[in-house]
């Protein structure tokens, strides 16, 4: 009985780690086939890029403004007013919006909107045996389907990160105005704290989020099984695993960035 209980807990864990390993392998394959000629994926790359752009720009706009205004904006302003230090909101937005919330909100929206679409699309093709047919006709699904999605999602998340932090900061401005404070001090503390490291750190991090989402969602789509219900399961798992991956990666990235760039630890 002890053995079967252990089996029941170990088997899913082993399965999970096997999948993570498979995704690592897929990442390697994707990068290799992205750089090794020929390059047949240009058209698909543009399609996927525009597709993600068209699908995500509006949800992302709403999410970032609302989140920036509501969460770090109103809450932090409320707290800062206590010390009569509302001008510090600008500095806080460097930490909150640029470093963390803009990439995170971008990733969440991208995974939920574009990632699920990728998994559902590839999953349906897998179930209809289209992927098998492609392979038999000499088309490598990694090179022709995964690589363009991988590159498109990385580019889109990188660009959307800037878009998200602009609208996030706009949320902060709204919060400042709601407290009837002038914007000068906001910008002053904002720019004393902001550094180039913050910007490229944010964009790089968000680009990596895009890579994680693309690999997880492609993997889950291409390994879907069990009919239409199986595609549904795959989409669900793709979102869950994407989020887990993003949060885990965020920890490692933030820790590393802070350790290698101690100057951004200092709040001015």
């Amino acid at each position, binding site marked *: *009985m002890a053995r*079967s209980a252990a089996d029941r807990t170990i088997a899913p864990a082993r399965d999970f780690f096997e999948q993570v390993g498979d995704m690592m392998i897929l990442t390697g394959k994707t990068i290799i086939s992205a750089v090794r000629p020929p390059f047949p994926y240009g058209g698909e790359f543009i399609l996927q890029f525009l597709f993600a752009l068209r699908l995500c720009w509006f949800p992302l706009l709403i999410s970032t403004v609302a989140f920036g205004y509501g969460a770090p904006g109103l809450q932090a302003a409320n707290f800062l007013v206590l010390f009569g230090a509302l001008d510090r909101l600008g500095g806080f937005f460097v930490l909150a919006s640029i470093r963390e919330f803009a990439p995170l909100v971008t990733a969440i929206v991208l995974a939920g909107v574009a990632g699920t679409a990728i998994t559902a699309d590839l999953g*349906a*093709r897998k179930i*209809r*045996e*289209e992927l*098998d*047919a*492609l*392979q*038999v*006709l*000499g*088309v490598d699904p990694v090179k022709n389907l995964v690589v363009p999605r991988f590159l498109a999602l990385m580019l889109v998340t990188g660009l959307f990160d800037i878009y998200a932090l602009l609208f996030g900061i706009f949320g902060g401005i709204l919060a400042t105005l709601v407290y009837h404070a002038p914007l000068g001090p906001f910008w002053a503390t904002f720019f004393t704290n902001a550094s180039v490291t913050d910007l490229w750190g944010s964009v790089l991090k968000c680009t990596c989020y895009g890579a994680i989402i693309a690999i997880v969602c492609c993997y889950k789509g291409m390994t879907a099984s069990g009919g239409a219900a199986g595609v549904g399961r795959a989409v669900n798992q793709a979102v869950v695993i994407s989020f887990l991956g993003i949060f885990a990666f965020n920890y490692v990235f933030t820790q590393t960035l802070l350790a290698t760039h101690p100057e951004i630890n200092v709040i001015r």
Partner: protein
Amino acid sequence: MSEQEKKDDQPIEPAERVRVVQEAAPGGEEEYRWHTGLNRPTGVPDAIEFIDVHKAFGRNKILKGLNLGLPEGKISMILGPSGTGKSVCIKHMVGLLYPDDGDVLVHGESVPNLRDEELFEMRKKFGVLFQDGALFGSMNLLDNVAFPLRQHTDRSEDEIMGIVNARLAEVGLTDAGDKMPNELSGGMRKRAGFARALVLDPDIVLFDEPDSGLDPVRTALLCELIQEIHQENGGAYTVITHDIMSARRVAEYIAVLWRGRIVEAGPAEELFNSDNDFVRQFLSGSAQGPLGME
């Protein structure tokens, strides 16, 4: 606590003990009572060979020591109840699945041991009709059928369209060229998949149930078409079906697959006159015999 351990804890009823013993002891023998594995010679070399192939998905063992040879230049049929692994066999031939044990040879080359580029080359020999047609949902029928030509040949667009239209006409889809796959019935998708599989005049053609979902008249016409095209092009054709009428019409070689192994294989006439009870039952479509619902 698992089922098995529950049984271990309780005193075993005599009747149950008997049942357990019966299940365990002769199992292997009993299960393969009808599998003579007899392979009657055809006098031609094999285009595709399965050598003691084992394949399991998790604990679900599908192929259990499959030995099968499909002769060059003939229309072969693999017959067997649904769910026995016929589609799995086809995927082994084109290297979409790899055997856990054993070997699959195509024209003498071991498919599981090919490097990626070699596999890519080898697949050019094949035309495959998948069970549900496997048309590309993002392309219309013309583009679907033209896909292999664009992928593997340098023909001009005019030539390609000429060939594609001829192929679509053969399967009665002349007017459906600009339709998307999801606008078609299952039978039409199947026929389009058929056209796509044959568009490169491949050496080896695999049809996975080309006749399921077609009406009897269209099935008969499709069988004639397979025979005609085979006469023109030659090559090793493999058709998977459970339609005995189709088998009687076109098969030159028949292999009966059940429980992961070949029950019996050989030239069609000889199999139709086989004295193996299972083969007789299956080829006459009778309810009486060793094969039940299970």
